[in-house]
Structure formats: C-alpha cells, structure tokens
C-alpha cells in the first residue's frame, strides 16, 4: 500500500518528514536530491531519526550518535546494533508516497517492552 507522506515542495533538501504512523516512518531528502524512507525510531533507544543529523546518505541519531545508511538501513556506527527497515519511496504529481516494508521492525528495548505491556 502506498501512503501519501507530503508534497515534495514541502520537503527541502537536507530535511526529513516524519509520518506519525505506528511505528513512525521518516522520509529524508538528501542534499543530493535523493529521497529515502526508513523507520523513524532508532533501534538503540527511543529517539526520532527525523530529528537527527543528515549527511550524505547517512543519518546520525540525535541522541547517541548511532549512524544508519539510508539506502540499506544498515548500522554504520554504534551504539545501535540492529538495522532500521527501509521503505520504498515514489513521487507522483509532486506528492511523495511511501510503500511500507512488510518486514518486522527492529524497535529499541524500551518500546518493545511497552508494546508487550511490560515496564517501559
């Protein structure tokens, strides 16, 4: 299913747009003009990668500086150890759409515990 994210003109290069779905997903517009969508929550601890430091095809978590490759979701720098999911992005008539991955997300322990009803 393609989910409309935002208008391309509302997402300047170097910026990110967070979709408040569960779990949240963010679309990144790189300085080179490429668009990538990944899970927004860092796999290490609860932090929004849309708030992070975008550089090239890499985003650094705003809290603990884990780095993720936007193209593959792979961890480029610790403390995170698990990749984020990547999602397909398409642009039609100036609108950015995201096709969500059907893989299971790698959520950080605090969120996984909350979803399971345990202590956060």
């Amino acid at each position, binding site marked *: 299913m393609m989910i409309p994210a935002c208008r391309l003109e509302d997402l300047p290069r170097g910026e990110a747009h967070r979709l408040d779905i569960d779990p949240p997903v963010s679309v990144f517009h790189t300085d080179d003009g490429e668009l990538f969508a990944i899970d927004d929550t860092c796999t290490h601890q609860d932090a*929004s990668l849309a*708030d*992070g430091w975008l550089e090239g095809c890499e985003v650094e978590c705003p*809290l603990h*500086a884990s780095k993720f490759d936007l193209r593959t979701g792979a961890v480029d720098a610790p403390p995170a150890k698990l990749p984020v999911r990547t999602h397909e992005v398409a642009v039609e008539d100036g609108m950015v759409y995201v096709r969500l991955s059907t893989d299971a997300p790698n959520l950080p*322990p605090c969120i996984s515990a909350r979803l399971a009803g345990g202590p*956060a």
Partner: protein
Amino acid sequence: VRTVAVVGASLAGLSAVRSLRKQGYGGRLVVIGDELHRPYDRPPLSKEFLSGTLGEAELALETDDEDLQAQWLLGVRATGLDHARRVVRLGDGREVQADGVVIATGAAARTLPGSEGLAGVHTLRTLDDARALRDELTRGGRLVVIGGGFIGAEVASTAYILGLDVTVVEAAPTPLAGPLGETMGAIVSALHADHGVRLECGVGVKGLSGETRVDAVLLEDGRSIPADIVVVGVGARPNVEWLADSGIALDNGVKCGADGRTSLAGVVAVGDCANWYDPRAGFHRRVEHWTGARERPDAAVATLLAGGAVEPGVPRPPYFWSDQYGVKIQFAGHAAGADSVTIEAGAADDRDVLAVYRRAGDPVAVLGMNQPRLFTRWRKQLAATAS
C-alpha cells in the same frame, strides 16, 4: 605495518580495530583488555543498566555477526611499552610484538582517600562496578553521592527512580559549572530538588565514618549525613601509569597531536587517556566523551597507517549527553570560552530549554534539555561555523 596492538578493549579500542579493518589494514591485530568482558557500552551503566531496565547482553558493542579477525587478550593488563624492541609487556609476563600500537587504556574513577576497604562505598566506571552498585541499590536505603557531576547526577537520578533516599554533595558552589558554566549548571542541577533529592553545594567531604561498613559521610562544616550506600563520583584520571618508563610524552594523559600521533613513531593514542591538541583552541584538551572515543580512532588509525603523512580533518565540536530524571540533556562545544548564554527556546523553569553560548557574538556551544530536534540543528551550525 605487519602487527598492530590495540591496548584497551572498550569503545576507543574497538573503534580503532574497526577503523583499521575499514581502512584496509589486513595484518595481524592483537587487542589487549584488562577487563574480562568483550567491549561493552558504558553510558547505560549509570542509567538503564543500573535501574535494571537493560540487561548485560544489550550492553555489547559488537554485533553478533561481526568478525574483525583480531586476537583478543582479555583479563590481562598491559604493564609496559618497550618502544626500542617494539613490544607491549603484559601483567602475566607475556610480550606482544607489534610495529604499530594504539593506546586506548581509558581512565579510572578517582577514589576518596581513606575509603578503601569500607563496605558500601562505590565508584562507577566498569561493568563489575555497576553490578555491585546495582545489587546494593536494589536493597534500598539512604544513598549519598559525593560529586554533583554527570556520573553523580545520573546515579542520583537512577537511585531516586528506584525509591532510595538520596543526597548529593558537591564541593563547588554550583554543580556542572565546569562543563556547562554557572548559569546552566545551576539550571540542570535544579533537577535534583525538583524530585526531592537533596543537594548540598559548596561543602567538601572530610571523610567517611563506619567500622567495616560506611554509616555516614562527614562534611567539612562539621555535619554528618547518614548513609547506607556511598557513591564517589569525583572524576577520572587517565590510565597511563603503565607508560611511565616508555619514553612517551605524558601530560594529563598521553600527549598527542591533532591527528592522534604521540611522541613515539608508530604509536597513536585515542579515547579518555589521550590528550589531543585542539588546533582551534591552540592548546591540548583531554576529552572524556563517548563520541570522542568513537570518532577519533578514525583519524588516529589513518595517521598510524600512513606513518603520519595525512593532514587531519577538522573534528566536529565535542558532543555529550546525559539523562537525568527523564530529561534528555545534550551539550556540544566548549562552555569555557563563552561570554554570554541565551535561552533561544523553551523555558528554564520547565526544564525544557535550548541555550546557546556565544563568544563575541559567535556561537561556541549549545545545551539542550528535552530539545533533540533544535539541538541537532544548532550542533550542525556549530560544526559549520567551526570548520
């Protein structure tokens, strides 16, 4: 370079090993670590691990499928560096022959003289320290934290969450004034009082009382604070004693250039034990941040492999974070040189603040409390201004 010895198996050492492989070094690699554990992440030791929300397995820094093709000598301490013979001496009498050496031996928690052997007195630096403190905290009681710095404040916050009665004693008039400046140090350390944690400032500690187990902290003004558990958080000193007869230049740690090189050829130093030259400041700074231990090995390894022939890049302003009482505290840059601090967003009373430090109008540092998005923007701007 045919063999590299990395002395130190924590974040800086592991990052050096990863950098070596990433930068194409295919030779023999020996990692020496004085703790028995594989590399683990220390920041949670005063927070999620101490409160019991994070287990030991989650502290591991290596991923399950990672194979760095290194030989790990763990639970053994390096006791000397013989540069003429290109040998690292170990505490068990063994020697490691290496033509390249990365020094990453970190720092050790400072202790309170006279507190040795008294039960209930803790420092917090290693996983074993954290295990021991966690076991005591779960039994509850009265905790006195000596030192209102980041480790002390985080332990106080965690102990408060666990339901202990907590007092923090700080010798300086304002906690965190060194790293954050007086104004913001006062605002951040007000988090203690917000949560009913007592903060005693401007008074030194004379000693501890107790026969076999601590029962009180004695203050220099004559007061005595009853205590079942004491945590001493009064900073760390670089682990460089083992280098005393090596001939390497030491000055508040291993004295290094802006690229990690030391006074000895084929030897670089990274992490908390390394006192790197800061070209922008024009003097050496020993930085004890997690991010420095993670990032600087890239440059130091490049220096090692190139024999010192590479020009070091401009490092990003130092960055660290702290979590206290549910508030995310972030800081980048250097507060020391600032002549003004202004709150650009949020309100100090709400503990929800973005503050910018300036010197002659130029931003030199930024502090965030629960402001990750704005903080990152300012941090990026700081890096752009600095480079």
